[in-house]
């Protein structure tokens, strides 16, 4: 039973940074913009949040700092992709490299000591329930925030007028512009939101999940989040399910190592990357399913005719 609880809670926790980053990227891509720089924004968020904790700020401030760092990094991409109409692939890659450099630069004085991680919540009665308590009601607040963001973003995209406008812009910016929507401004907001979410994801890694600072500590999670958006065929619920699937993979890998399976640890470490490829292939083979929710103007620069 204890093992089951460990695997279940471990899965949920490992999925949390992926949920933040992938949901943020979903909103960005739904507006027709492809930001490949998640990895860089996550690293910036992780570095800033970690710095804030070591500098003595409280946890909420540190996490907010992480989100702001991610948003600030995304602004660099936004200016290039939206104002200067550059190739979005190249701008995103530049951000990924830049973010990894800046975070490594900031992190050079952080040392290798872990910090005190974000605490789990303690809800009277609920957290003390047998079985249900440890399974559902003892996570740290960020886990619940990730789920809240899932509900909020699903509701925003599919149940509000603003969400409809955002999706329209992702399908046909020309049409949206013609009927008077401020395409560029809304895309900026989407990019900034995606950056803040990536920053939250990074902050979660450095102040709750690990909790210490290691150069390039995201280890590809930003790219896996990108893959998750494709895997989810641009739908929020599937992002959640996909993130849990990958979280489960990570935990099985750790448990496998703990159980001393007779496989090289590198093979276990490679599992999430292998799984990403397999899952992408399975989803992408079905072109129709992929096209159904695909934002038609994704990664195409938009310049208003006038």
């Amino acid at each position: 039973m204890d093992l089951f609880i460990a695997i279940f809670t471990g899965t949920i926790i490992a999925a949390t940074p992926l949920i933040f980053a992938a949901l943020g990227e979903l909103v960005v891509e739904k507006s027709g913009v492809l930001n490949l720089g998640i990895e860089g924004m996550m690293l910036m968020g992780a570095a800033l949040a970690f710095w804030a904790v070591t500098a003595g700020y409280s946890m909420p401030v540190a996490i907010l700092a992480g989100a702001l760092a991610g948003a600030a990094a995304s602004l660099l991409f936004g200016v290039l992709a939206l104002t200067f109409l550059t190739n979005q692939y190249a701008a995103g890659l530049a951000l990924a490299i830049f973010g990894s450099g800046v975070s490594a630069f900031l992190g050079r004085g952080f040392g290798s000591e872990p910090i005190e991680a974000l605490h789990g919540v303690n809800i009277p009665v609920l957290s003390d329930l047998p079985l249900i308590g440890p399974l559902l009601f003892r996570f740290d607040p960020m886990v619940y925030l990730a789920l809240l963001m899932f509900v909020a973003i699903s509701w925003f995209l599919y149940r509000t007028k603003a969400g409809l406008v955002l999706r329209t812009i992702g399908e046909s910016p020309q049409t949206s512009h013609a009927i008077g929507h401020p395409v560029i401004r809304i895309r900026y907001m989407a990019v900034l939101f995606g950056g803040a979410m990536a920053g939250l994801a990074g902050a979660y890694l450095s102040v709750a999940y690990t909790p210490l600072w290691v150069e390039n500590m995201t280890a590809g999670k930003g790219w896996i989040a990108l893959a998750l958006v494709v895997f989810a065929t641009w739908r929020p619920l599937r992002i959640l399910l996909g993130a849990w699937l990958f979280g489960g993979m990570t935990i099985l890998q750790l448990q496998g190592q703990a159980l001393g399976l007779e496989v090289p640890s590198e093979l276990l470490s490679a599992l999430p990357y292998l799984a990403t490829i397999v899952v992408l292939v399975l989803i992408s083979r079905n072109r129709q399913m992929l096209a159904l929710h695909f934002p038609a103007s994704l990664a195409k620069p938009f310049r208003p005719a006038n």
Partner: protein
Amino acid sequence: MRIAAPVVAAILTLAVGSIFFASLGHDPLPTLYAFFVEPLNSMNGLSEWLLKASPLILIACGLAVGFRANVWNIGAEGQFTMGAVAASGVGLFWPNPESALLLPLMFVAGMGAGMAWAAIPAFLRARMNTNEILVTLMMTYIATLFLSYLVHGPWRDPAGFNYPQTALLPAAAMFGPFDPAYRLNPSIFITIVAVFLMWLFTDRSFLGYKMSVSGAAPLAARYAGFRESAAVWIGLLAGGAAAGVAGMAEAAGPLGQLSPQISPGYGFAAIIVAFIGRLNAFGIVLGGLLMSLLFLGGEGVQMTLGLPSALTRIFQGILLFFLLAADFFIFYRVRLVRPARDAHALETAR
């Protein structure tokens, strides 16, 4: 005008660099001098400059073939790693360690391994419609783990005091340097040939032209009957071959053995080199020399001024940012217009 953008970008990067150094409390001019001039002040510096530029230029040439056709191979780092692994495998375990065939065999093994590593995303993209950006990147993580497995496990040098590294390659498996005092070796000729081949392909061949059309106007390419899958295969295999050979040359040149860290990020930096070079063979040579200087300067200021080598990656990012932004002013005419009060727009948005 297309040439102006990289120059402007380089100058702006220097300007930002000066401000950055000043804000760290270092006098900008001497720091810039230490970063960009001092590395080239000696014969050894010049040798190191070309030594590091060589793999960057080689990989960028291969990648640019794909980029021209909108095939986004960003996993050259992994293809480089696999090339180094396969070539070292041949060098370490070939029955006759003195054979004159050793280097040519390693060349073939490195190129083959790089191409094989790139063939997987090519197949998945061409046949299964799978995004090559994500697959090439995931393959890079897998290649790095594979290398780590080899040097920690089966290929670890038994006489190596438990360090995670292989035995040294035999002399016949190495490019002997031109001058024993410096590290520059004849593998640089491979890069020169590759630049020439790249120029032939992109500027003088019909196939290269078809690839460019596929990138610039996919619909026109389809109408003309150019197969998209051919562009995908050629684009990825060219990048894989170049990166694999670069990995081989690195293992058989400055490294001489495998360890968990064999690349300072050549595969990723080469992407930027390809863009700075405007996806053009001779531009890439200049871009590679500039990028190599960034690597050298980063190492230099780390040793002399104690600044972290992460600066190299920061400058790489800034350089690409400025290059992309500079393009905007070349491809578009900028007119300042007074923004119309879009009350109507806001009204409909609500």
